[in-house]
């Protein structure tokens, strides 16, 4: 009981730190059943480990204090060979403690690997590219870049693939990661309880732009998701202003070779995120706050903004064309 009392300050630190970090990024503040399951496993193992730590540290501190060399003391300590009873105790007790962790862990491992479809579940194919993410919805015939829209309270079965090197798909608030391995399709599932934007990151070193290979999982109500998916599958709507109209011409001349909009354009061999719903993103290129200034910076100098990425700079565009292009891109929306 005394040891449990000692646990309190440590637990308090954990809870305190759980408040640290950005909501929707930290694994300490789960927003879905998987992350919750994982956090409870983390807590279980942590509590047992804290017990171990407390016991060892207590013996350690006692020994150091009690048996320290005192001035003038020159006695030769008794040379103790060992003690079988003690050795049996500190062999069996750890085995029991480990079993307490191992059993739920094995069960959870199988639960997390269960990617069987259930009613209403959807499948998303996630492909990692240097240094961006592609989300394909085979049931809806939709391809999206950077933002992964999912319906809330729905089992989302994720197929993970990679087009170049290894990547790893991690949305800490929703679920632990799985790797995107070239030549192999890995499977996992996620579920978000509440609508929200959950930050995701690539966690496998994939080159220069690795640290900026962020993405978002956007959880929306199922009916909103249906609307989103249907609109994504439609041809792009015409621009509403003259400037945006002009911007579309710039886009057709400069961007369509790599980036598709409304199912038109793009080139699988070259690659480039689908931009159909670009105007609804909260960030540009996975990490820049979405505003005109940043968009212009990105379009003119992508190579210095996100090192190692394959987009060529469009610094040769004149101001008028650039403004038009930005206007057009801001208008690429499917939800309103």
């Amino acid at each position, binding site marked *: 009981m005394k040891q449990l009392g000692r646990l309190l300050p440590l637990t308090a630190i954990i809870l305190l730190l759980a408040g*640290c*970090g*950005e909501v929707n*990024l*930290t*694994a*300490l503040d789960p927003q879905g059943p998987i992350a919750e399951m*994982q956090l409870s*496993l*983390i807590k279980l*193992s942590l509590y047992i*480990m804290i017990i*171990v*730590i407390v016991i*060892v*540290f207590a013996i*350690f501190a006692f020994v150091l204090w009690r*048996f*320290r*060399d005192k001035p003038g*003391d020159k006695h030769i300590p008794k*040379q*103790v*060979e*060992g*003690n079988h009873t*003690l*050795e049996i105790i*500190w062999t069996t007790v*750890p085995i029991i403690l480990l079993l307490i*962790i*191992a059993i739920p*862990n094995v069960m*959870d*491992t199988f639960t*997390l690997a269960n990617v069987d479809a259930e009613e209403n579940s959807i499948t998303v194919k996630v492909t990692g590219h240097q240094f961006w993410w592609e989300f394909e919805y085979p049931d809806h015939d939709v391809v999206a870049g950077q933002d992964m829209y999912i319906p809330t309270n729905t089992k989302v079965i994720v197929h993970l693939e990679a087009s170049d*090197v*290894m990547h*790893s798909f*991690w949305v*800490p608030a929703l*679920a*632990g*990661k799985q*790797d995107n391995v070239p*030549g*192999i399709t890995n499977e996992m599932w996620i579920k978000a309880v509440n609508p929200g934007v959950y*930050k995701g*990151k690539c*966690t*496998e*070193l994939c*080159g*220069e*732009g*690795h*640290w900026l290979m962020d993405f978002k999982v956007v959880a929306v109500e199922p009916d909103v998701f249906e609307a989103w998916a249907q609109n994504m599958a439609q041809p792009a709507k015409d621009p509403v202003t003259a400037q945006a109209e002009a911007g579309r011409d710039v886009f057709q001349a400069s961007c369509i070779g790599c980036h598709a909009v409304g199912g038109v354009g793009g080139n699988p061999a070259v690659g480039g995120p689908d931009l159909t719903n670009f105007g609804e993103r909260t960030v540009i290129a996975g*990490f820049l706050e979405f505003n005109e200034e940043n968009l212009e910076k990105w379009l003119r100098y992508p190579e210095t903004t996100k*090192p*190692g990425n394959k987009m060529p700079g469009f610094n040769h565009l004149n101001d008028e064309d650039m403004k038009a292009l930005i206007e057009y891109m801001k208008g690429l929306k499917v939800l309103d």
Partner: protein
Amino acid sequence: MSNSQAYSKSVLWDWLTTVDHKKIGIMYLVAGAFFFVLGGLEAMLIRIQLMFPESNFVSAQAFNELITMHGTTMIFLAAMPLLFGFMNFIVPLQIGARDVAFPFLNSLGFWLFLSGGILLNLSWFFGGAPDAGWTAYVPLSSAAYASTGLDYYVLGLQISGAGTLIGGINFLVTIITMRAPGMTMMKMPLFTWSTFVASALILFAFPALTVGLFLLMFERLFGANYFIVEAGGNVVIWQHLFWIFGHPEVYILVLPAFGIFSEVLSTFSKKRLFGYSAMVFATLIIGFLGFMVWAHHMFTVGMGPVANAIFAVATMAIAVPTGIKIFNWLLTLWGGRISFTTANMFALGFIPSFVLGGVTGVMLATSAANYQFHDTYFVVAHFHYVIIGGVVFGLFSGTFYWWPKIFGTMLNETLGKWFFWLFFIGFHLTFFVQHFLGLMGMPRRVASYLDGQGLNDLNFISTIGAFFMAVAFIILLANIFVSRNNKAVSDPWDGRTLEWATSTPVKEYNFAQTPVVREIDALWYEKMKGNKKLPVAEPLGEIHMPNGSILPLIMSIGLFIASFGFIYHTYVVSIIGLGITLGCMIIRSVKEDHGYHIPVDQIEPDKEVV
């Protein structure tokens, strides 16, 4: 042949050709320390870069090179060689031997390690260092994505790894065949035991690395397609090969450190090791399990729940023998008379530090939760706790403990304590907070992190801690300098094992007469019996010693040259380089070399007085 030959050469020539295990040990220590400083500088650059969010102190490319070289350098070129230095110097002394089993190979092992290490680091100057992480996962390390730097990695580690393998085999044979009369396996000091088990791990683990590196080399240089998916290759094979080496490697490093702690804790508590046989069996079991759990590095790669569950439980099992060791150490201290020398403070500081690293190891072993931990700063925190809290503390403890025997001087204890406390505090400051950074969403190997994600403060604290460690290390260097004239006696710590029975500095033949071992802690046993010297197994007589040879150095240079040929696809150079090495091997095979004898009048009799 004649004695004059051995004494007439210059000092430099003597060191370049030496086959004396003590000199080779010192060379390992010096070279290892050099690479430790290099790896430390790389670490400081990494932490300075991560001190503030979105920092541009170094570029993302340079950062990836820094992390790759920091990891590779610290593991292969600092930690292992430094341990090899202690093993080389101490193990033959601890078992009462005059030399190692294969002195020539011992020298070859050192020069191979050094030339591999230099080759690897030359990549900084020629075309960029390797940048795919120390694990060099394909396809990022394949020719399509990584430049010349990876060729330096592949070839440098092969040469260096060959040296390590040779060293490991040498220790195995030495320990099996050259123990003094009476020293049964179950009377060996723990450092010798752990060297033995670590060497066995080297014997089985390094071939896996060599195979992996060979496949990668053939893919990169000659267009083989083991790892190229489009050609039917499989990228996960690399990970298996790497970790079949890489996981035991952790134990190759930490078991000898455990050995050092066992010696130090028992010496400075004036007690024999508690549960000696349990310690030996725990070491063996850790060594065995170390091989069975490699795939816990790959829980997220898609092996499926069955494999993940098995490897998870197997990994947790390692906590049991490790726990046995921890409690045995605590009980060694129990009832003793503990003196707080710097060597012992590092050994004592190891216990809480390593327990913290160990418990996070069990947490990481929970496969389902590992999906959150994997490849985040939680992992970075964990393995630094294990490797610094275990291995580096062991190296520092061994440095202060054996310095008098190896270099004949006593390190300053006051500076030693400053060094310990700064390093200890800095270490925990740097790495404790990283557990939380990982769970808060910070992946490892990121060149920076975005502002406003709540990661700023802890990263700042972490960097401050790193500066503490850097300052501490400078104090160690200052200590070595100021202590250079502080002569040591042959047994300054009231030691228990045979190395303390030799004179300081140790004569080239170690023991004038081979000692007889009657108990565990042979020297302590004789002291307690009131004997002034160890019983001896032979009358004073001529001692047969091996001749030095320049061939190991030339063979290593040959492979070094050949590597440049491969890296720059100039195969003529490769053939010349390999020819040099092969030629040396032929010379070594056909030239008779019987060594020389030290006559009785040159052996000062009865030197091994307690």
